Each structure stands twice: as C-alpha cells, then as structure tokens.
C-alpha cells in the first residue's frame, strides 16, 4: 500500500514535465523544433533545468506567450485553457522553488504591455472569472498634489512648492499606473521642504519681498492655530487637539481616530516642550501632511469579503477612488448636488453600481459647454473634466506638439508657429465631442467641426477684441487697428488676437489669416476634403512628426497600438533606423528600404497606416503636392519655384483583427472613415479607457468589465460618459482581491 502511494506521488511529480513535452509536441514544435527554430526557439531540446540560466530564459518566454495567449497562434487549433493553465502553473511552481521571479509579472504592470493580452479572448465572453483589482496603494498624481496645495490657499504666491510626484511622460502612453510610482527618499526630501513651507504659511507666515521692494507676510492661519501661536503659555490639551483635528480634515478629509489623535498629541506636546508653541505646532502639522494616506491612495478593500473572497472598497475608500478618478479634488471637496461625494458615500448612497453610475454621470455632466471657458482646462481646476481631457491627451499624445523641436531655420520669428494655441484648439475639439456625448469615438476620428482661436464664449470674444482696440501701449497697436478696420469694412469678423504674428498661426489649418472671416460661433466646419478628426488636427500631426519631416512610421504605430489593440515588436538592436536625407524623392520613396523582407514583417503593420497622412506637411497643413529639395522655410508660398510632386496618400489596413476593415485605402479620409466603423477600434478604445480610469492593465479576469463597458458605450449611442460610468461601477473598480 505504502509503495503504491510513493509511485502515485512520483507520477504526480513527473506528470507536468511529461505533459509539457506532450503540450510542446502538439502545439509548438512544428515551428519551434531543431529544424525550423522560429524566433530562435527550439523547444525540443528545452531542459526542465531551472538552475540553468539559458533554460530559464526560454521558460520565461514560454510562460509569457502562454499566459498572454499569444501562442499557440490563432490560426492553429488551440489547446484547452485548462490544459494550458496546468502547464503555466507547473512552470510557476518550478520558478518559485528556485526563487525565480517570472519576468511577465513585472512586464504585466507596465503600460506598454497592455496590448499583449489577446484581444479576442478578452471580448469573446469565454472568460467568466469574477473581476477585481489587487489591493493597492496608488501614489497621488502630480495634479492631485497641486490641487491639495491649492486648497490650502495662496502658499505658492509666497514660496516655491516643489512637485514631489512627477510622472515621466511619454508620448501616447497612459502613464499613471498604480504599479509604476512610489514615494522614496527623493520624494520625501521634496515633501519635507514643501510641508515646512506650508506649516509656516499656516502659522507665522512667509516673508516675501514683493516686486516693488516691500516685504510682505503671506499667511493663512486658522483660528485654532492662532490660539496656540499667540499664547505666551503652553497650550491646553483641547487647543492642541483642535489644531490636529483641523489639519486632519484639511489633508485627509476626515477626523483622526482616537489613537491617531493620541499619537499626534504626544508628538505635538513633546515638540512644543522642545521648540516652543510655534515650532512645536508646525512639527505636528508636518506630521499630518506626511501621513502615508496623504501620499498614497489606499485601496485595500476594507469592506466585507464576498463568496469569491473579494472585498469591496469601504465607503471612505470608494469616495476617494471615485473622486480622484473623475477629478483632482478630494471627495469632501467635490459637491454632487447639495452633498459632498464623501457624504454621499458615507450615507450609503453609493452602495449599488446603479447609484454609482448615476453619480458619475452627474459629476461628468456638471461641466456645461455653454458656460465653460475651455482655456480653463489647462490652466486650473474650475472645470471638472480635466481628468477626461488628460485621458485624451495621454491617449492621442497631441499635446506633445509643443515639445517637437522644429529647426529654427524653418520657423522664423513671425511664422506664428504657436503650438500652444494649436494644442488648446485640439483640447476644445475633443472636449466638445465629449460634452455632446454621442458617437464620441466616431466623431473624434472623423469630425471636421473644429475650433480655431475660440475664446470660450461670445463674451470673451467681445472682451478680448475691446482690449485689442484700446491697448494703445502695444507696439503693434496701429497694425492691429488697421487690420480690424479693414476686416470689419469688408463685413467680416476679425481674429481676436493681438499682433499679426499671432494671427498667422491659423495658416496651419489652411486658413488665410489676412482675409479670414472669424467665426464667433464655434465649432465650425473646415472643408471635409481637408480635415477629419483629431488625427488630421495640426496638433496631432505636429506631435507625431520629426524635426524636418512627417513620421509615418510612428503615426502608423500609434494607430496599430491605440486603435487596433495590437503591438509592434521593438526595433532589433542590430538595425540602425536612418531615413535617407536624399530630398530628391518623396518621404514615401525614402522609406522604401523598410520594404526589405527582413523589415517588412513589422513595417507592414505601421507604414501603410501612417503614409496616408502624407496629405499633410509636418506642420499639419493639408497639401496636394509635396515639395522636394531642402526646404528652408515653412512657407510654401515662398517656394513657388520648388520642385513638387503630387502627394500619394494611399495606404492599407493589413491584418487588423477586424476583417471588415482590412484592405487598401485611397486616402487618409477613407482610412479614418473605415477605422471609425470598426468594432475592433471601438474595443481598443474601451481597453485604453480601462487602463486610464483604473490605473492598470486589463487582465483576462476583467473581460466582463470590458464587455459591459463596450456595451454601455454602444447601447447609449456612443456615450463615453456611459462607458466611464460603467468602468467606475464595475467589479474591477469596486472589489479588491
């Protein structure tokens, strides 16, 4: 009997290894054997030796391919998920024995790994697992920190407050993931400096020399602090406690617990005895500002566990999670109707997904286009949908237009190359579509209703024009007046911008700044033959261009990754990607070397999607002819004798994952129209939304969340607000496990 048990045990131990051989021979070795060794991989000779680095490297790759369902390839019959999971569990167990960290666990946490998960598996309904997020600490965003500082008053007028939570922004990447950022000693150094400045501002004030040489004290001292700092004797217990409670409310949106109050009181008491009332109080205030809860959003799931072992976010956690998902404000400062979001949560009014959805809609709807000055989006937080705007910026990357360096020889001082203004136009474009909330993605990709120098309202227009008319101190006053008079005499409306060089920027929309009749009501249609959606907006075109040229490869890569949920392997290190500078030929022609056999496998995923944008120059102006030779300025009109060739804007959608849209396109507008009609593109948009609003990559267990969000979007007529509400009321958002 005993020997039987031993044999059984041995079999159980050998089984996974035998199973892996069987699995490989059934599913893998046709391509990855000693003969074909596709991708340099020979699984026939793979040893189950987990102490050998070379073998471990291969097992790492096997684990990654299986867990992301990239392999075996879709075109082949695929093994059962349970069979696959047996093998991956065994690999993980072997790794664990040798203390090896699966590399995929690290990669999975990074933004650029998002698309590695097989798209069809996410949306085909085959994944039934209950959704949840891991319990987590999410470092505050730089924007939340800014808002927190702002809520303290005008401390920034008196002293520099450093940004301790900077995020390294990469173009087109949703970067604020909970897994990606932490607070360490470098963060703490900056925080300490800030906290000391804030504590001084809240007590004795900060002495600052003003522009006219006067010294002035800046401060905002609550009465409960004043009682302590102005007292000549040691403060009473009640006074110290009142000060602590005040600071807790300000920084944490809640009162301290009994033990927190006791601990902070002890600190304050000790500090006051050592350093006097003022310094002692300041020390206690700093201790509250440095609490982990101020640095991290703590989303552990303090609610009761359910049958699947998941814990719901507590009312307090939920209020913060929702508040910071939708705004930069803490939930006690975010009013929903007559109640704060925190009060709503505490009184049980956010207990059901339905009530959460309604609250999310209320918050999103609170921004009304008719009263909002769209310039505010980038400048402060009066308009609540800054978080939505940031999604669009992260997703499309168009705000990087300001960071693309253009050769100074090409842009002279009066060129009007005002990328900041172009980005504001693009902000208005996307937010207007968001506000209208119908067919959002389609409009983002195809609408020709643009904003150009829109000031937010007619009132602002009149105000600015009046200012220009009356600003006699401006060096260009006479020119401005001549311009305004000439335009108005022609029965048109002048551009409400001061100075001819500012006005010339409208040229990037192919608008003639000299004679343009400025539309006071915006958005207004630009020619359909020239503009379709944000990807033809000068901001996006410039953001995704080089110093001298368009960048069809990265534009194509952007479409492949952001709209088709696909990925492009990174460039092999042996390849030096240099585009010939032979300007006798078009850029399309100069990219021909990428069609070589060894390059085209990847480049076919990008170039044919990016080349249709050759209909625009690298400043975003629509064109039908491409200039050859070295171009010394950006003004085509100064190069009438330049050699030109007609623009070829044809392209191709290859292997998109949606057969309905695959095939040649004759120009950029056909490309965009077709992309806008695709369910794959819509689902890719949903996936990127998920990452932004939840701050992590999706997993297969989030499948139901994604499907529901997609459904919410389509069933509500292409409503992005419904999509967001669905995500923020999903199990993935509400539960932790």
């Amino acid at each position, binding site marked *: 009997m005993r020997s039987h048990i031993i044999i059984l045990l041995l079999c159980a131990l050998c089984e996974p290894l035998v199973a892996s051989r069987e699995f490989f021979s059934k599913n893998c070795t046709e391509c990855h054997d000693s003969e074909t060794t596709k991708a340099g991989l020979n699984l026939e000779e793979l040893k189950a030796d987990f102490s050998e*680095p*070379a073998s471990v490297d291969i097992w790492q790759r096997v684990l990654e391919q299986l867990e992301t369902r990239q392999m075996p390839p879709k075109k082949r019959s695929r093994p059962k998920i349970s069979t696959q999971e047996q093998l991956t569990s065994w690999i993980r167990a072997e790794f664990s024995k040798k203390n090896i960290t699966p*590399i995929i666990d*690290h990669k999975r946490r990074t933004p*650029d790994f998002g698309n590695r998960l097989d798209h069809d598996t996410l949306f085909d309904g085959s994944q039934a697992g209950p959704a949840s997020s*891991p*319990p*987590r*600490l999410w470092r505050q965003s730089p924007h939340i920190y800014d808002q927190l500082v702002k809520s303290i008053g005008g401390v920034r007028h008196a002293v520099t407050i*450093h940004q301790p939570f*900077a995020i*390294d922004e*990469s173009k087109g*990447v949703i970067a604020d993931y*909970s897994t990606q950022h*932490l*607070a*360490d*000693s*470098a*963060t*703490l*150094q*900056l925080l*300490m*400096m800030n906290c000391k400045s804030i504590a001084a501002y809240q007590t004795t004030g900060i002495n600052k020399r003003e522009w006219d040489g006067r010294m002035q004290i800046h401060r905002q001292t609550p009465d409960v602090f004043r009682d302590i700092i102005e007292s000549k004797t040691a403060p009473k217990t009640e006074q110290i406690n009142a000060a602590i409670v005040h600071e807790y409310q300000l920084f944490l949106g809640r009162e301290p617990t009994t033990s927190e109050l006791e*601990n902070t009181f002890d*600190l304050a008491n*000790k*500090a006051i005895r*050592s*350093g*006097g009332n003022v*310094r*002692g109080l300041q*020390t206690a205030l700093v*201790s509250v500002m*440095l*609490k*982990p809860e101020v640095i*991290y959003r*703590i989303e*552990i799931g303090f609610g009761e566990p359910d049958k699947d072992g998941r814990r719901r976010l507590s009312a307090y956690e939920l209020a913060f999670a929702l508040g910071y998902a939708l705004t930069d404000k803490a939930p006690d400062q975010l009013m929903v109707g007559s109640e704060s979001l925190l009060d709503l949560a505490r009184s049980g009014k956010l207990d059901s997904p339905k009530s959460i959805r309604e609250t999310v809609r209320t918050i999103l709807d609170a921004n009304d286009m008719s009263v909002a000055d769209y310039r505010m989006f980038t400048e402060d937080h009066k308009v609540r949908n800054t978080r939505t705007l940031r999604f669009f910026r992260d997703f499309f990357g168009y705000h990087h237009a300001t*960071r693309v*360096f253009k*050769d*100074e*020889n090409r842009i002279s001082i009066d060129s009007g190359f005002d990328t900041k203004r172009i980005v504001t136009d693009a902000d208005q474009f996307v937010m207007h579509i968001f506000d209208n909330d119908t067919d959002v993605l389609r409009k983002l990709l195809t609408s020709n209703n643009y904003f150009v120098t829109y000031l937010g309202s007619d009132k602002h227009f009149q105000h600015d024009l009046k200012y220009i008319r009356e600003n006699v101190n401006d060096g260009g006053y006479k020119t401005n007046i001549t311009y305004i008079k000439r335009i108005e005499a022609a029965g048109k409306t002048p551009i409400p911008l001061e100075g001819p060089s500012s006005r010339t920027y409208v040229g990037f929309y192919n608008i003639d700044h000299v004679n343009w009749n400025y539309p006071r009501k915006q958005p207004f249609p630009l020619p359909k033959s020239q503009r379709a959606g944000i990807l033809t907006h000068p901001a996006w075109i410039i953001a995704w261009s*080089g*110093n*001298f040229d368009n960048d069809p490869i990265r534009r194509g890569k952007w479409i492949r990754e952001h709209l088709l949920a696909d990925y492009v392997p*990174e*460039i092999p*290190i*042996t390849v*030096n*990607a*240099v*585009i010939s*500078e032979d300007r006798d030929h078009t850029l399309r022609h100069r990219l021909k070397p990428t069609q070589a056999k060894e390059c085209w496998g990847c480049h076919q995923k990008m170039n044919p999607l990016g080349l249709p944008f050759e209909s625009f120059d690298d400043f975003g102006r629509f064109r039908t002819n491409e200039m050859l030779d070295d171009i010394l300025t950006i003004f085509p009109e100064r190069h009438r004798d330049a050699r030109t060739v007609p623009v070829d804007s044809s392209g191709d959608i290859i292997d998109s994952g949606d057969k309905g849209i695959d095939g040649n396109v004759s120009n950029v507008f056909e490309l965009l129209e077709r992309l806008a009609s695709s369910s794959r593109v819509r689902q890719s948009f949903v996936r990127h939304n998920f990452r932004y609003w939840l701050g992590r990559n999706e997993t297969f267990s989030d499948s139901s969340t994604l499907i529901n969000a997609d459904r919410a979007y389509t069933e509500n007529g292409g409503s992005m607000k419904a999509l967001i509400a669905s995500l923020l009321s999903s199990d993935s958002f509400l539960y932790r496990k």
Partner: protein
Amino acid sequence: MILQRRHLLKGLTAGAVTPLLRPFLNNVLAENEGTLPKRFLFVIKSSGLTPAELVPSDLIPSMVRPGEREDWPTELVPTKDLIDLPLKDHKLPESLKALSPFIDKLTILQGLSGKMCRGGHSAWYGALGCYHTGNEGNPGRASSATIDGALARVLPSIFPHVGLTLGGKVLTGVKDSVVYPGISAIDADRPLPYQASPAMAYKSLFGIAATGKAAEADNLLQSILLDHMVDDVKRVRSRIGNADQEKLDHYLSAFDSLRDRRRKLKGLEAEIRTAAPKVTDKFTSEVETDRIEAHFDIAAAALISGISNVVNVRVDTLEVTYRGLGISKHVHGLGHSESVDGMTPVEARSRIRTFHLEQIARVAVKLKAVPEGDGSMLDNTLIVYLSDAAEKHHGSCVEWPFVLLGGLAPGGGNRYIQYPAYQQPGHHTIANLYNTFMHLAGHPTDNFGRLDNQLPPTLQKGPLSQLLS
C-alpha cells in the same frame, strides 16, 4: 578654500572628537592608515561614444578604417591582440585635449563588449548592470544592482549615491524635478533617483549645512518628527496587510535614511559649507550647457566634501539640444546623422563630447587641488565616461568604449588599451571592467550581472588585470 584634512586632524584634541565628527574623521584616519577612501564619478552620455573618435589622432591611419554605413563613418580595425600603448607617445584625440594636463591619470579603454545588454537607444540598467532589460521607451526591470549602486553599497557615505541629470528617460528632454532615468539601481527592483534641477540638488545635498547655528532646535524637532513618522508608517503598514507593502517599505526607509543622514551630518556643517559650490544663475538657467556645468560643480563638491563617494552625472538625454554650443538640433537628430548649422553630425557630436570632457577636466582640477595621502584626491577618485548606448546611437554593444580618469592602481594612466575584438581570445566584457571597479573599491567580485552566452564564461570573470597593474 581647500579642505586640508591633515591640518584639521592636527588641530583636534582627543577630547574634541565628538561622535558627530566621526564619519568625516573615519576618512581622515583611514588616510593615515594607508587605506585611502575610493570615490567614483560616472559621467553617462546618451547616443553612444564612438570608438574611432577616441583613437589617438596619429594612430588613426593604422587603427581606424572607413565604416560601411552612413551612421558609422569610421570604425576601429578589429584586433586579435591586446594593444597597450603609452598615451604620451601619441597625440590625444581633439575632443580629449582638455584632459591632457592629466595624461598620467588618463586611460582610453576600447574593445570591451556588453552583448548581455539590450543596446539600441539605451541599454538602460544593463549599461551599468550587465543584463538585458527594457525596450525602446521603458527601462524594464532592474534585475540586480548596477555598478554605481553596488559601489554605493560598499563605499557607504551620507549620500550613498548622488544622481544628477538633465532629463528623465533617454527619449525625453530637460526636466526640473526628481526623475528615474532607468540606468541606476541599488538592488533588484530598486531604481535610483536622479535630480534634474541643479538648484534642488544643491538644496538637498548642501542645504542642511546652510541652516547654521540656529538649527539646533530645528534639528531636535526634526528628530522627534522622524521618530514619530517611522512609528506612524509602521502602524499603517501593519493595518494594510500584504498589499503593496513594498511601497510603504520604501516610504519607511526614506524616513529611516533621513534620520540616519541627519545624525551623520551633524557636526559637519562647516566642512560642507566650505566645499559647497557657489550658487550662480547657472543653477536655475534654462540653457542646457549651464545646467550641465552646475551639475558638475555639485558633483565635485559632493565628492570633495565627503558627503558622497559615488556620483553619477547623466549628462544628456536624446531630446536635449545643446543650444549653448551653437547646435540647434537635439542629440537624437544628430544620432540619426542629420546635419545641422553647417556642421556634419560627426562634428556636432564631437563638439558635445569635447564639452563633456572639459567638464570632467574641471572636476579633475578641483580634485587635484585637494591633498590626500601622498597625492591628491584625484588619485583616489575614478572618473568614468561612457554612454548607456555603448558605441553608437543605436548601440549594438559589440564594442563599449570608456574614458577613465584618476584613481586606478598607483601609477595607472597614460594608457591606450584596446582589447582583442569580440569573440577573439583575450576579449573581455564590461562585466570585467565592473569587477575591476569592485576590486578598486576594496570589495573584489569576480562576476557581475549576467553572462554573454556567446562568450566563454571564463573570459567574463574577474577584473581586467591590465588596469590593476
């Protein structure tokens, strides 16, 4: 004013030696016992360091040949034998001219490879860590300590590792805050931060000393606060269970190390004040070259004051434009062989390299002026100049050139060393060089990072004996 360590020691009676002065005095005592402190300054440029351009100019005809590709106009003639020449017998390359006063301390090191790394625009942590990680936009995982991190651990100081930089990740431009460029780690999954703002770097390194006598009470309050915070973070940590505990551990250790640092700094204020750089408008300038100069001033002061033994200057990133040098195209464009302002890309890159080496020379002058042992501080400080992209803009890592200045073995320097080419007998890798650094630091290791599977493991073990002799 220059620090006169011996003089200071003589002026102190036994009774005057408070525990607060101990870290500083440890160095002084070590000096008397013949074990001089070791320091390292890593200067890391982006976009590759071209091997052919480091060859003494009189040797170019025999050692350099035309490259086959546009981005690779000239290349080293591969050698089967070790080349080891005295630099004094040859003409320094134009861009290294600023180092000629220190030729006795200068080593140009060629022919090492780093094929265990990723290459491309950056090998990320691999460049200093000898392993494959990351992709085009992201550094990936730090799977173990990089050499600067490893040295920081074995050469403890108040600021174990000082990182100064212009930008963040390799494809970004100038920043003004704390960033993680993804090239340094003190341990697995523990990336090291870099300060991008010279003004902020000054504040955090030298600010403590600037508080002066009035700081007594502040120091006491600070320690009360730090004790409280350590307890507070620990309480939260116990409440949240296992979730993301690592993040709170980082936060906790930040308070711990701050507490520790303050203890060590106490009493050293005067010394630090003496060595602290003079703050000029370069510290807040938006001109890239100004900021770089400010960073080098800080680097020198951090080493001279003894508050750090390991300093890294991440001297540029690919989106940086050297406007101060009259180059109006960013490093990325130059790396892609785009010409600019009447210069060829090779000329523009050379101008940038020259500027970097001039900065290194400025640091060397300052170090040389501080007596230490029988020589100067430069004898005990190794300055290492390299690129995280190895030998070119999209590095292949088959060659990885270095310029070394300062404290190698006694009598080290005045050498041009070129190891046999990749896969030739006698070839070595950057891992051997990093083992050498560990030997120099008094903590010999024979293995660093991962092995290159295409090379015999024995070649990759141990230090480079040429540099230790």
